[in-house]
């Protein structure tokens, strides 16, 4: 109690809640929905991608997912215990962060690295800002960005999917991702391989098909706004397409852009993060168009082959600003009265 008052000095002592009139900030739930239910649906939607990662990269992928999830939940528990807040590790948000983080890691990434990334994602990315709903950045992506800076070599050491490695007759072959092949060697990968996921890359990012199934299921359940994922992908295709038209031999085609790398995973599961995306329609359009442009520009001209992660994180930072300045006007607002 004492701490509460210190945090918000203007807050009045708690009165018994008024049952009928609930004044709260968005999102307003009209249906029988809660964080719990939404989060578990998202986990369900991620199942195809998880299955694909295990199929293409073996049981180690499952191990990484389990360890990331466990580390995320443990961190959440530890921080909430430390801050003397209610423990909410079973609301599913930490589970999703763990899964998403694991899906963005290379299959050969060490377990301790996944633990470190998870601790940073939940500890710094979410709890330090005040917990679920208060975080500015997508926690999983923040954890991934931290790992990118912490273990730059390990996180860019990719291996071929099992089927291709078996053909070569060895257990694990280091390989370049389609984006790196495009960027540094000017080689294109087949669209079909990209669609099914039979390429080197982060565990859960390679299979566009699996991610699409999950994404469409989320859309079907009505948990995501179609503007966000489709707008982001369309923006990437549009700007990627412009460069492709300028020089088709040097730059990849638009379809390659949206199938390769983290585009699908980012578009369906990270751009759509309820906490870190804008709430107004105009804000959402700006968010996805600029995000797609950034991703393409980083891919084609930046130092790294992949730009989806940084594009989303950078746009996350603009969300409060977008929400503030794209608020729809209420009727009569702004008209001067003489």
């Amino acid at each position, binding site marked *: 109690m004492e701490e509460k008052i210190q945090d918000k000095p203007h807050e009045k002592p708690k009165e018994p809640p008024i049952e009928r009139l609930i004044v709260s900030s968005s999102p307003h739930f009209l249906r029988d929905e809660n964080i719990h239910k939404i989060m578990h649906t998202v986990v369900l939607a991620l199942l195809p991608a998880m299955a694909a990662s295990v199929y293409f990269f073996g049981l180690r992928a499952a191990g990484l997912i389990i360890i990331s999830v466990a580390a995320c939940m443990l961190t959440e528990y530890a921080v909430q215990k430390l801050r003397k807040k209610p423990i909410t590790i079973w609301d599913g948000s930490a589970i999703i962060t763990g899964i998403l983080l694991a899906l963005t890691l290379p299959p050969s990434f*060490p377990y*301790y*690295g996944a633990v470190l990334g998870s601790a940073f994602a939940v500890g710094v990315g979410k709890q330090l800002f005040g917990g679920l709903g208060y975080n500015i950045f997508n926690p999983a992506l923040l954890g991934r960005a931290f790992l990118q*800076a*912490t*273990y*730059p070599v*390990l996180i860019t050491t990719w291996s071929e999917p099992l089927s291709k490695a078996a053909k070569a007759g060895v257990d694990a072959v280091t390989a370049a991702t389609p984006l790196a092949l495009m960027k540094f060697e000017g080689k294109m990968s087949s669209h079909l391989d990209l669609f099914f996921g039979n390429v080197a890359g982060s565990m859960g990012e390679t299979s566009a098909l699996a991610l699409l199934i999950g994404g469409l299921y989320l859309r079907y359940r009505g948990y995501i706004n179609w503007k966000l994922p489709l707008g982001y992908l369309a923006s990437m295709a549009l700007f990627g397409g412009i460069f492709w038209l300028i020089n088709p031999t040097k730059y990849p085609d638009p379809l390659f852009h949206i199938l390769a790398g983290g585009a699908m995973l980012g578009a369906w599961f990270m751009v759509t993060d309820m906490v870190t995306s804008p709430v107004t329609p105009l804000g959402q359009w700006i968010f996805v168009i600029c995000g797609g442009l950034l991703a393409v520009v980083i891919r084609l001209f930046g130092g790294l082959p992949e730009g989806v992660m940084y594009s989303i994180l950078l746009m996350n930072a603009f969300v409060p600003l977008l929400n503030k300045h794209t608020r729809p006007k209420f009727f009569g607002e702004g008209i001067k009265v003489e």
Partner: protein
Amino acid sequence: MADKQNLWHEFKKGLWQDIPPFRLVLGTCPTLAVTNSVINGVAMGLATLFVLLTSNITVSLLRKIVPGQVRIAAYVVIIALYVTVADMFLAAMFPPISKALGPYVPLIVVNCIILGRAEAFAQKNPLMPSIMDALGMGIGFTMSLAVMGVIRELFGFGSIMDIKLLGDWFEPWIVMILPGGAFIVFGFLVALVNYLSRKKAETICH
């Protein structure tokens, strides 16, 4: 006796109560930029301590001579003098350190701590308190940089003062020696110092 206590207070405040980077949030530029190893951090801290001490002495001695209207100009010239001396000294005697610190030694000129102490303290106080103030602030600053350096070098290289502490099992956290790591460590340390001082204040109140 009271005088001595006063001097002690002027010295002590820079070590914790007003420790420059963490409590005053002054001099954050070098705190973030050159603390990727303990040696660099301490060297930077000592260079700043030298400039702080000499400029505080000079400003305190000249406090009745320099007219108020041109005091800032005068202080800047004085500070720039000592900074250049420190820079040349490092380049002549410790070229590797001078190279590692790069432009941050000349940038001591614009370190807010120096001008801040000259303006807020030395120009109003006699010699002895000004010396104690400079020593306290300078040592506090050096300590802060050393702590930053210890944490960043330990995690970033697995060593402290170039002595390998963590074995081969430890995969260095490259981020710690990059600017991003500086901000992360700095944030945590500011939080820690705030937390500890609040705790201290609470125990005194109760």
